[in-house]
């Protein structure tokens, strides 16, 4: 993992630690199940799986795009927990909306943890596009950091893209 340091002196490693903590807390609360960090070499699974994704941008002292990518089966289960309704009652829109709300909650928790490290950010609404620099030009994205987790016996991916 790169030891890149941002202007506020928070390392990418620390941001990822905060992200892991946020994912474990939020997903454990939503799923009411044990959530664990999974094998870091799980990307191949997501190349073939039917997935839903949602992203949130945190901007301020750092600029970061947090994306939640989950197989449809797990997205349906999590959305049903969020909506307190049976999984079979949910349509495609409900499932996508559920993933967006979970991304919102993850990013919110991450924002709080970053603030504890003196790194202040604001949060976009779910589903934001690639962030733009204040002058309107696209900033250079660092290679994405992929974090894999197991939740309700399914894999999910949380991707963190930091912009320099």
């Amino acid at each position, binding site marked *: 993992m790169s030891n890149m340091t941002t202007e506020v002196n928070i390392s990418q490693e620390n941001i990822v630690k905060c992200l892991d903590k946020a994912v474990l807390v*939020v997903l454990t*609360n*939503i799923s009411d199940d044990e959530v664990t960090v999974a094998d870091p070499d799980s990307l191949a699974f997501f190349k073939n799986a039917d997935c839903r994704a949602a992203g949130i941008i945190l901007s301020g002292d750092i600029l970061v795009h947090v994306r939640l990518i989950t197989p449809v089966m797990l997205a349906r289960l999590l959305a049903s927990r*969020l909506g307190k309704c049976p999984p079979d009652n949910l349509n495609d829109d409900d499932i996508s*909306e559920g993933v967006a*709300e979970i991304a*919102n909650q993850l990013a*919110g928790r991450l*924002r709080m943890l970053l603030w504890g490290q003196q790194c202040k950010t604001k*949060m976009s609404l779910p589903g934001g596009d690639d962030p733009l620099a204040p002058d309107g030009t696209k900033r250079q994205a660092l290679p994405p950091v992929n974090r894999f987790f197991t939740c309700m016996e399914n894999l999910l991916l949380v991707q963190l893209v930091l912009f320099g």
Partner: protein
Amino acid sequence: MKILVADGSGLVRHAIAEVVAKIGHEPLEAEDGGQALSLLHKHSGEIGLAILDWNMPVLNGYETLMKIRTGKQLEHVPVLMATSDGFRDDVIKAIKAGAIGYLVKPFSMDELSKRIIDILADKMDAKDQCSHI
């Protein structure tokens, strides 16, 4: 009593509305801050509580709270904020602006129903005390 539930997520909004109905109140659902304000003005005399998500389209929860608190018509409506970050400065900002409390997402429905019941009971007590003066 009518309770306004404003949340950008339909799933979360429906789940909260179900809790409200389960404890014997009528939920009014809004998907953004603009709709929330319209419903509050339309039903101003009947609303016992407004639950506002912080991160909503059009007007966020804090902006909606500020609009509620700047008019005479809605100043009596208690506001409970729901936030995904529980960030201390935001919470203080909301309480200073007149919110009665906050819930950090994800919250349990038991926790939510307890908060609603407590807030409405406090509101009734305050009303009783005023009527005895």
